């Protein structure tokens, strides 16, 4: 089956953490960037033609993905392409997914003979078997399949695209940018549709100055009765990292075994850029409890309920609890951190004390010394 993947790098919604990066290049889980999940899901499903649509701050993303080699996407035919704005001498950057697809028209039109397109975002993380989704889409005979997750809507979180099913599995309601009650499913921003249908719709929408995937294509056409929508309810772990609070909570939930096993399923490994760090060294007096720890760290202090990225130094007498510490940060002797996110390369000088809260952890920006 010839399938093309389109990954949306997504604009930033995580404040200081995404000042200079896309949601796709946001570090996650000790050794990953968020986009690794979308790339690995496509790669595991045998998709060998992937476009990455990105609008702002994509330097770190390009650096991370390179030629796509780590995901097996370094191909002569197909392979991986960055689809950046202005690439086709259009005057403007794009406003929504449909418009971005229009600016990447050549990628759609002149690529290999792909029959289906899987569109996937990089702010919702999962380890999903996309072949199952594709098979379900084909079997349904519908125009588009939306992958959705129960249990995310809670009456306070605003969903990009919310769907409510009726008793027979049909669609009772669709809403966009909606603070949905708990009986709605949240779209995981994964769509499967035929390339021909997508191209027709992109043209049609752009001609009518419509550019929004969720609002115009899904909701708009559904309201007109002009589209058949299949909903694929995903049972596994789906992490919606759309706010700092969610990112913080989801990151630390990797400490739970069932979450970890689900997200890093052995049959569908999550690939990332290799960094070749040495194994982590645990010192004579370190006390590490309930932590996720990447390679290359030097640990001599105490950590509880933390997530440590590569090459973190935790000096003697330093105490950290409920923290996310990104690559190459150093926590000096006797420092104390609780509910803190350190971006890459942060230095915490000895004896410093920083305490945040669960719902709003303190963020120290990349490269800073405190």
């Amino acid at each position: 089956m010839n399938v093309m993947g389109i990954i949306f790098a997504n604009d930033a919604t995580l404040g200081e953490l995404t000042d200079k990066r896309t949601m796709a290049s946001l570090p996650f889980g000790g050794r990953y960037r968020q986009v690794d999940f979308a790339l690995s899901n496509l790669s595991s499903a045998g998709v060998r033609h992937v476009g990455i649509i990105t609008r702002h701050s994509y330097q770190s993303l390009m650096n991370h993905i390179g030629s796509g080699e780590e995901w097996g996407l370094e191909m002569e035919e197909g392979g991986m392409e960055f689809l950046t704005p202005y690439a086709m001498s259009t005057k403007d950057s794009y406003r929504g997914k449909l418009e971005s697809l229009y600016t990447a028209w050549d990628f759609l039109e002149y690529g290999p003979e792909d029959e289906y397109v899987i569109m996937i975002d990089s702010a919702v993380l999962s380890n999903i078997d996309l072949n199952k989704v594709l098979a379900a889409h084909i079997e349904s005979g519908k125009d588009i399949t939306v992958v959705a997750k129960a249990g995310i809507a809670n009456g306070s979180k605003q969903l990009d695209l919310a769907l409510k099913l009726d008793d027979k599995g049909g669609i009772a309601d669709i809403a966009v940018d909606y603070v949905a009650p708990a009986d709605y499913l949240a779209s995981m921003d994964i769509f499967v549709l035929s390339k021909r249908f997508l191209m027709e719709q992109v043209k049609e929408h752009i001609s009518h100055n419509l550019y929004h995937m969720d609002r115009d294509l899904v909701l708009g056409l559904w309201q007109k009765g002009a589209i058949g929508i299949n909903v694929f309810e995903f049972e596994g772990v789906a992490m919606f990292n759309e706010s700092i609070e969610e990112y913080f909570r989801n990151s630390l939930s990797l400490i739970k075994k069932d979450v970890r096993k689900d997200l890093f399923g052995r049959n569908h490994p999550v690939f990332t850029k290799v960094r070749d760090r040495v194994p982590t060294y645990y010192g004579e007096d370190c006390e590490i409890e309930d932590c996720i720890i990447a390679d290359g760290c030097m640990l001599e202090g105490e950590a509880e309920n933390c997530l440590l990225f590569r090459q973190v130094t935790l000096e003697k007498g330093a105490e950290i609890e409920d923290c996310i510490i990104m690559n190459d940060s150093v926590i000096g002797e006797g420092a104390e951190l609780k509910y803190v996110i350190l971006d890459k390369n942060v230095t915490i000088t000895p004896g410093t004390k920083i305490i945040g809260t669960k719902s709003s952890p303190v963020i120290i920006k990349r490269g800073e010394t405190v």
Partner: protein
Amino acid sequence: MYFQKKRCIAMLLAGGQGSRLKVLTEKTAKPAVPFGGKYRIIDFPLSNCVNSGIDTVGILTQYQPLELNEYIGNGQPWGLNKTRSCAQVLPPYERHDKKSGWYKGTANAIYQNIDFIERFDPDYVVILSGDHIYKMDYAAMVEYHEKHEASCTIAVRNVPLAEASRFGILNTNPDNSIYEFEEKPKKPKSTNASMGIYVFNWKVLREALIADEDDASSSNDFGKNIIPNLLNAGHKMMAYNFDGYWKDVGTIDSLWEANMELLGKDPEFNIRGDERSKIYARNSALPSSYIDEDAKTVNCFIAEGSEVYGTVRHSVISTGCTIGEDALVEDSVVMPGVVIEPGAIVRHAILGENSKVCRNAVVGGAFEADEKKNISVTSKGAVVEANTVLLPGEML
């Protein structure tokens, strides 16, 4: 294919069995034996090549090559898969002139691959082996070789006099030129031991290999034949002193020791390094490791993809291992994919890849500081059944 003239290429002898590693090399060639949590022995010479700017490496394989070949693949982890670089696995092959068959010795292995070397028309060829753990800048050695206009330069290190008779010993003049080579002498005249790392002028080596092949009495070995022959023929040969960490990991004891020497805040061998001395390895795509709230991790290396629920002291835990609740691992080397079930005790052991120590089993024992430590070893995939004992020094 595109071939470019190279100033220097490397030939890595990786065909040996490593029989003194016993069960660990039953199904794996020695260079593919895991080391240091996420590496294999061959990562050290290969990474040294890359860090020394040598981008063309021929790897001679013979004994149990499946895993080694798989591991090397196209050389991608070491950046040796580019337009102008290569990591070429060179197994023995059949030739028209019957001068083929298994590699008869180290020199014969290179002889059979003269065609490979000729493609790059190199000035110098570095001969390496896949038996040692060390970091070395081969480029500095080649510079030294060139500066002294030698035909051959041999890396040497000082060894204790008592051990000198185990090595090839080089006797040198005050200017470090070699006047005599003695293979494992009973009464060594010096303590300059050959490290088995040679730089040759390719033209000289090529002739020597062809002459050696024509000599029916030769054992086709660098140490026994090529080096003495060149010396007798009056070639200028230099000793190149190296005093960094260098460890032969050819025995169970030395493999265990070398792993232990990675530990400590200021370890004997610091595997960490800057971008120029980094050791590269093939990556296993495993998530970060997890340390449970009841786990104890003291003075140890734990690589990614491991889950620790028990106690680990003074040990190296490799990628993808599980250490169960109330299990104890002490003074041990745990190779990739090992499962140690709850309540098991492992001391002074090397646990081979994917082996398993079941519930409440006991492997190895404790020793006094001055006592000889008998290391217990499990082979790849071995299972120590629940509630059983693998005694100190025993192998499974």
